[in-house]
């Protein structure tokens, strides 16, 4: 059919015979894409008198927004907190591999590490906005020391970039620590923990170096001067998350009032819920949250980090705040055995990961799609709710829901085709297929 589109000549793709997640429910609607964005077909029809150039039959698949993982420490043998010579190719590998799990955007997470892992050395080139082409150079001096666990530079090698066939997009780094509680360090190395009671935000800046590509910082709000730090971070558009903490509810509420909006892996590495002081968990039903704000909370729904009953309690108490995260470690995607996580060694056995020789949980090896399915099964929630917990909610947390996390018109066309069992069949970024399940053809 002749199409004389007045706005653009770019090809228009119409995905038909599918159920799309829009307006919080699965609707029998076609999905239209042009120039990497979701297109409004009614506007196309009436304003441009345009029509589709390509029609694809999705064989009754579910189409959902791509998953966004805001807490992932590595995978496939790559550890984001470990400085190596080929860190860049490590992050590229993970971003490429997680496409098959349905993740189209993520925040590479750095656990508590020595300052050298964070620091930006003065000779560094600034990050190129297009990412791939802006390879950060490791200055000669540091290169010589590469291979030692304590030295080398990691954080500056993480740059914000769009996703594509090369892999999922990077939204920025999630710095989990070192400003966390000793009592709730979990698998984080104690010798690297720090406080900012001397210089508050300046201390934080000194530790991290630059905050250019930092998207989320997890800290313990009971630490002295945390309010100032939280305010400064929030002012810079960085999401502050509470975690690895022994804060009581008032301390947590104060942190929220100063700008904190997230809780790192609810229940894990914090005081347990107590009926006279619910601690951080109490934020889910707190009445001291500033008007118009919502507290989000990460949940590792791998069936191990949280008992399904606890998952259900959290979900029922505050369904709109639940954000599924993998907290995946380097061992994700690898065979059982020993692997590194930051400065520590961990042991994998099935979906369980412990600090080697102990029973302390340390991250998970569940993939995001496993988490989505497990969440849906454990809570009995609707497919829509399960999918939104991994897409819409993390997008809302990061304030990017106008372009990610939904299939609304003009959003980035990052989406997944799933079957009814919520297994990912194909992954699309900016409207282009970047991964497909081999077994089933389309």
């Amino acid at each position, binding site marked *: 059919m002749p199409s004389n589109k007045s706005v653009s000549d770019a090809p228009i793709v119409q995905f038909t015979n599918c159920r799309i997640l829009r307006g919080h429910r699965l609707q029998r609607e*076609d999905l239209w894409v042009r120039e990497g964005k979701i297109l409004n*077909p*009614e506007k*196309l*029809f*009436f304003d441009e*008198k345009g029509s589709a150039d390509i029609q694809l039959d999705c064989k009754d698949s579910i189409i959902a927004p791509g998953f966004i993982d805001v807490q992932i420490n590595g995978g496939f043998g790559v550890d984001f907190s470990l400085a190596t010579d080929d860190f860049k190719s490590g992050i590229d590998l993970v971003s490429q591999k997680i496409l098959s799990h349905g993740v189209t955007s993520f925040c590479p997470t750095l656990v508590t590490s020595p300052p050298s892992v964070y620091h930006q050395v003065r000779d560094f080139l600034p990050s190129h906005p297009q990412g791939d082409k802006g390879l950060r150079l490791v200055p000669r001096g540091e290169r010589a020391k590469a291979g030692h666990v304590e030295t080398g530079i990691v954080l500056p090698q993480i740059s914000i970039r769009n996703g594509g066939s090369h892999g999922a997009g990077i939204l920025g780094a999630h710095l989990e620590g070192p400003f966390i509680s000793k009592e709730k360090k979990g698998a984080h190395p104690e010798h690297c923990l720090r406080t900012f009671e001397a210089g508050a935000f300046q201390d934080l800046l000194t530790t991290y170096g630059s905050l250019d590509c930092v998207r989320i910082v997890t800290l313990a709000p009971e630490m002295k001067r945390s309010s100032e730090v939280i305010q400064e971070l929030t002012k810079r558009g960085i999401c502050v998350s509470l975690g690895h903490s022994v804060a009581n509810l008032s301390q947590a509420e104060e942190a929220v009032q100063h700008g904190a909006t997230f809780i790192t892996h609810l229940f894990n590495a914090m005081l347990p819920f107590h009926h006279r002081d619910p601690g951080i968990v109490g934020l889910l039903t707190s009445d001291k949250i500033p008007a118009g704000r919502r507290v989000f909370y990460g949940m590792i729904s791998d069936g191990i980090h949280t008992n399904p009953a606890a998952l259900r309690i959290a979900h029922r108490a505050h369904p709109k705040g639940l954000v599924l995260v993998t907290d995946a470690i380097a061992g994700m995607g690898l065979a059982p055995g020993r692997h590194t996580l930051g400065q520590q060694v961990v042991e994998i056995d099935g979906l369980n990961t412990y600090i080697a020789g102990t029973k302390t949980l340390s991250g998970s090896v569940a993939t995001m799609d496993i988490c989505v399915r497990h969440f849906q099964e454990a809570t009995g929630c609707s497919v829509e709710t399960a999918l939104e917990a991994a897409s819409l909610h993390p997008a809302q947390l990061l304030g990017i829901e106008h372009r990610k996390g939904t299939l609304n018109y003009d959003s980035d066309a990052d989406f997944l085709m799933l079957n009814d069992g919520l297994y990912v069949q194909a992954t699309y970024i900016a409207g282009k297929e970047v991964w497909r399940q081999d077994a089933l053809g389309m």
Partner: protein
Amino acid sequence: MRLVILEDYDQASEWAAKYICNRIIQFKPNQGRYFTLGLPTGSTPLGCYKKLIEYHKNGDLSFKYVKTFNMDEYVGLPRNHPESYHSYMWNNFFKHIDIDPNNAHILDGNAPDLQAECDAFEKKIEEAGGIDLFVGGIGPDGHIAFNEPGSSLSSRTRLKTLAMDTILANAKYFDGDLSKVPTMALTVGVGTVMDAREVMILITGAHKAFALYKAIEEGVNHMWTVSAFQQHPRTIFVCDEDATLELRVKTVKYFKDISP
């Protein structure tokens, strides 16, 4: 006139859809010769549209060489408002079929010069060679399109202020809030529809029964504008049993008997 009486809404919708489908197929439209169809909105034709979409999806009916002209559109309602007739036509019909967007004509209720918009619409119909089949409905006050009681039976496409009856009937689409219902609309005239080579009026439901009675058993009267079609050479009224409730038994029997 033909009066075709089907048992219920679904059967009436199917009959009407089949009739339209057959008309298009028999016409054998092609690149140089389009079939022109006049189209209504509202709850009555929804079943008919669903059936037409079904025939299209089955591969039996293509709208590639069909031009459509809708009867009316609200004035001042944004085009993408869920209750605009543009939205109605997109969601209930156009998005499911293969019509060329250049051939789907709906009056623009937000045009800067409304009368010029109406005149241009009449011209487009003329340029398309006139309407082969105009499908319409009937309001509870006997109006066709928005030709409210008192509209001239020889009227053309123009701006009309809506009658209270119509506003009340439409309130259900605007959360029951009368203040939200548009008060003006652009509409084809009675004369415009009378110019069509064939006219099919869909009337279903007991609430339309009195209007049907006035339209076909009483005289031609500008207070019941559908009555004008008594003077059209080729009009079919398609209705369900409930819509015949105010007709004389004699009328109903006659038309049922002569129906194949």
